[in-house]
């Protein structure tokens, strides 16, 4: 159940892979929707830490096109609801996240991303 908020906070961390290592691109994903409690304060607090464009693209990749391309200056309740749905309720159950730079694929299985690196990939 990799949520899009999680996807937005993870980058490829292979040794030396420091440019274009975010966002990871979803591959062969299986998606599930699960309801979550709406907490607008939490969404507002997280926004400064999120990469908007990466979120919009990731949402699109899994079939959610409700978010505006540009981050609006004002957050109204309707937008917060959409963000809540995109960030918290879309779960990736199976598939992988692939680094566009070094091509490392992080597999997702049973909703758990395996971010472990191989011996030759660590610093």
């Amino acid at each position: 159940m990799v949520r899009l908020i999680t996807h937005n906070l993870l980058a490829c961390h292979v040794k030396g892979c420091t440019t274009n290592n975010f966002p990871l691109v979803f591959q062969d994903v299986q998606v599930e929707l699960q309801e979550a409690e709406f907490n607008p304060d939490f969404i507002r607090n997280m926004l400064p830490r999120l990469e908007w464009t990466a979120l919009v693209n990731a949402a699109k990749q899994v079939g959610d096109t409700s978010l505006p391309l540009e981050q609006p200056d004002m957050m109204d309740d309707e937008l917060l609801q959409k963000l809540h749905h995109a960030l918290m309720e879309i779960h990736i159950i199976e598939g992988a996240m692939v680094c566009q730079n070094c091509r490392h694929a992080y597999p997702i299985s049973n909703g758990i991303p395996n971010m472990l690196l191989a011996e030759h990939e660590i610093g």
Partner: protein
Amino acid sequence: MPSTEYLFVFAQSHEEFRVPELLSISELYGFTIGFNRYANVLEKAVKRPFMILTLDNEEHAKILAQRCIMIKSVHEFYAEGASYDALHEHNCRARPQWERYIPDTSFKFYVLGYNFTISQRCQHEIIESFAYMDFLGKIDMKDPEVTLTVFEEYESDRAPHGELHKYGEFKQVYFGRLIVDGTARALIGTFNVKKRQYFGNTSMEAEISLLMANQTLASPGKLIYDPFIGTGSMAYTTAYFGALVYGSDIDGRQMHKTPGIIRAAAQYGVASRIMDLCTFDVTNHPWRCGSLFDAIITDPPYGVRAGAKRLGRKKLREDRDRFQYASPRPNEPYIPPTKPYELSQLVTDLVHLARYLLRPGGRLVFFLPTVSDEYAPLDVHAMLCDGMELVANSLQDFGSWGRRLITIKKTSLVEYPPPSFDSVRDAEESGDMYVPAHKDFREKYFQGFKKESES
């Protein structure tokens, strides 16, 4: 400063955890607790099951009783004394506090001994001795409007000369009106590990998991991270208090196949608050940026039942090709090699990682095992770094060893770079390294904590 005095009755366990818990919950709800009475004697006072603290109003007492695991009950404080004569004299002076209950308030009277069972007959005599209060309302044992309680505090189970206590040999007697019973203690039953869908041999017991969650100031909308999540003991309690929880672990086995943590979280109704569980080594972590979490809570594996591991090899053997194992065989899951992670290095790294990953004001809460004879307060202070301040350090004593619940706060507003995870090695190389007593804890544990000279 708050002005009204309240009598707090605590559960008689985890003494050193009581005051830090009270302070955490009052900070979370934005009010202060007055410890004026204990200005210079707090260390001694915390060993006793009764404390008289000041609060602005009763609502604060109720908040504390709903959330603090160590509180058994809170009372409006009327009087105390080393004898009943002294208590009654004090209570007469407190008359303005209770005289409004004289004309027409139903009431109930309780007499309780701490470390002593008071006979029915004596209880009756004690209650009679309060006759001068002259309450005119009816006595109602089931649903009274006010409950008045007398607590006799006996030093220990046995009198100083080793025989049983005699009635009346108490140290202090307290009197007050019940405001609220501690309801948070019932959560210890709710989170009982034995009734949990999923647990392991290193799962943290319920009471401690709850105390830890309170130290994080967990509340709705907070984001909390456990970097050694294991079987998730603290994820359930922090999520129960409303927080959203991330967990990671180097060992993915504990999380795969309908993750047990999700099943257990569902049992407590908090599955949707488990944000995600990830498999990675925290020394090679994929978090994209810092200042993410409101708290980091963890019980680092310290090697007795499960040792800490990090990616890498113990030592590279020059006679072997180093890339011999590096790439996985096709169609076989690759399992990278791991090496042991020495405790003092892990702890120093954890503090630095927390400084990077916590938001300003965020807290790091974790257990540090210590060797009782060798521990020095400097062991804890030496692990701190710029921008990280010690909030609490509470010992759970197991005799020759113990573990300390450490609470550290990120006080700095500065954003810090990600840590190198080589801090200890760097310091070792520069030669100005303080060696804390918890270094090589695992080896010391299996040697039975004998000093080198003894073995």
